[in-house]
């Protein structure tokens, strides 16, 4: 029994200006096991964020079903925590207040809220910043808070929507390594959305590659790189570059010519 089971998921939007139906997702099926780290990878416009929004309960699918554990998912809930690209921290709450939010909503005692919040603030390396406000922290630190805030809620599934896309390249690599450490320590089940091939390969147990227009499942790849992983070791690793090249090929096949050129540019910029 898989932890998360997505069965023939589809999403059709109505383009209000043209009055046409746009198929964003077409017959997507995959599963995620307990404690697994899975990335959904694809070019922009492939509907990968739509998958996350549906799993999170923010939008309704047009067809198919999603089971978490053995129950179908409903609206947004604390069993599925989301880490946003925009961080989405509450600016009027301190770091402690932000991380405590989940336990507070779960009506745990005040001392318990504090204990849990401090534990996860420490886990992401932000001890000493409890009383700061989000705007006083750098983008990278803010996203650490975003991760701590979700993990403090002990969700069954952590959803990450391009979490490191709005921080600079050096910070991103550090955050990726630290996310791996946190995952190795706690083994939360993670579904991460990204357009960054290397990020997906570096972090994941499995990478699910999508095609665009409409978003379909292209390949479900197991990443057999040994753990613990560090950028310093992987940059020269032949297996790592084989996998990333294979995925790059898949993505270029899977999208139109113009898209493929665009994607290649984007990949070229992203590589160190």
């Amino acid at each position, binding site marked *: 029994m898989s932890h998360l089971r997505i069965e023939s998921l589809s999403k059709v939007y109505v383009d209000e200006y043209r009055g046409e139906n746009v198929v964003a997702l077409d017959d997507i099926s995959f599963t995620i096991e307990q404690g697994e780290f899975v990335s959904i990878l694809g070019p922009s416009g492939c509907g990968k964020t739509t998958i996350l929004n549906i799993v999170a309960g923010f939008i309704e699918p047009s067809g198919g079903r999603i089971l978490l554990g053995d129950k179908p998912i409903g609206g947004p809930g604390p069993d599925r925590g989301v880490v946003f690209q925009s961080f989405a921290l509450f*600016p009027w709450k301190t770091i402690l207040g932000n991380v405590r939010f989940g336990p507070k909503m779960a009506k745990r005692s005040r001392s318990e809220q504090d204990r849990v919040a401090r534990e996860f603030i420490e886990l992401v390396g932000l001890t000493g910043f409890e009383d700061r406000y989000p705007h006083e922290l750098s983008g990278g630190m803010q996203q650490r808070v975003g991760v701590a805030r979700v993990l403090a809620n002990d969700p069954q599934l952590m959803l990450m929507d391009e979490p490191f896309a709005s921080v600079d390249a050096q910070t991103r690599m550090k955050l990726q390594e630290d996310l791996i450490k946190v995952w190795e320590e706690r083994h939360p089940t993670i579904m991460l959305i990204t357009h960054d091939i290397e990020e997906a390969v570096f972090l994941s147990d499995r990478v699910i590659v999508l095609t665009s227009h409409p978003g379909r499942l292209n390949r479900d790849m197991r990443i057999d790189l040994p753990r613990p992983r560090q950028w310093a070791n992987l940059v020269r690793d032949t297996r790592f570059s084989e996998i990333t090249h294979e995925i790059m090929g898949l993505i270029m096949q899977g999208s139109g010519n113009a898209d493929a050129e665009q994607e290649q540019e984007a990949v070229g910029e992203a590589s160190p």
Partner: protein
Amino acid sequence: MLDPNALAQPTPAQRIGRAVVANGVVRTLAPFLPIVFVWWAVAAAGIFPPAFFASPAEVVARFGELIYTGVLPGYLVDSITRLAYGAFFGLFIGIPLGYLVGISRYARRLSWPLLLFFQAVGDIAWLPLLIIWFGFSLTSVTFVIVYTVVFPLMVNIVAGIDAVPRDMVRAARSLGAGRTRVWLDVILPGSLPAVVTGIRTGLGYGWRALIAAEIIVGTSGIGFMMFDARRAGQVTEVFVGMIVLGILWYMTDSMVLAPVERETVERWGMVRRPEGAGVAR
């Protein structure tokens, strides 16, 4: 002149000098010096007949007289009392109403045409009717101020609710917050910058409406004093009135509004400066 000890240990004179520069009063008043100077120069040059254009010295003297005779303090108390009444009821009605309209798409669709219509019927346009109904009373003036405060407040709050980032609401929902908690913990604090802007704009309008109402309703107050002075040909008193208005608004802003903002929206990094209208995104 130069005593080496003075460098190491500031003399009392230096300490006073530094305190003066660091002093808020000095920093507030300094920008007005050139204006006062130009004013003085224009008056001294005699470009306008003295009956039309009072000099700074005359205005200060008249200011002193008006305070000494108790006319100005009395009128000030009247004006401030009216504004306080108007502001209190304006906020009391405007803030809940703003959230009520903002809460549901339904309420908004119903009330939006009304909101725009009554906002267009300006405050002063109500005065003829109000004087017939309530006479030259505090009720009439309060009504006008409430009216001017309520609409910008409501419009700002509705816009502020819409401006709360969608991801923030989603984050709260997936952290376990129900609809009520989302309202209390996200929408309410998230729309606070807009409320603050609304209060600032509303009170600013309300203050102006008060003066206009006093000119028309005219029994007492700063606005009455100014218009009465015009009738008597007392230009100096009109000048005094204008300066008093400016000072009063500055005091309201720096003693009431700004400290509130400093402790809330500014502290949270949601607003850049008290003077700038820009809301951080």
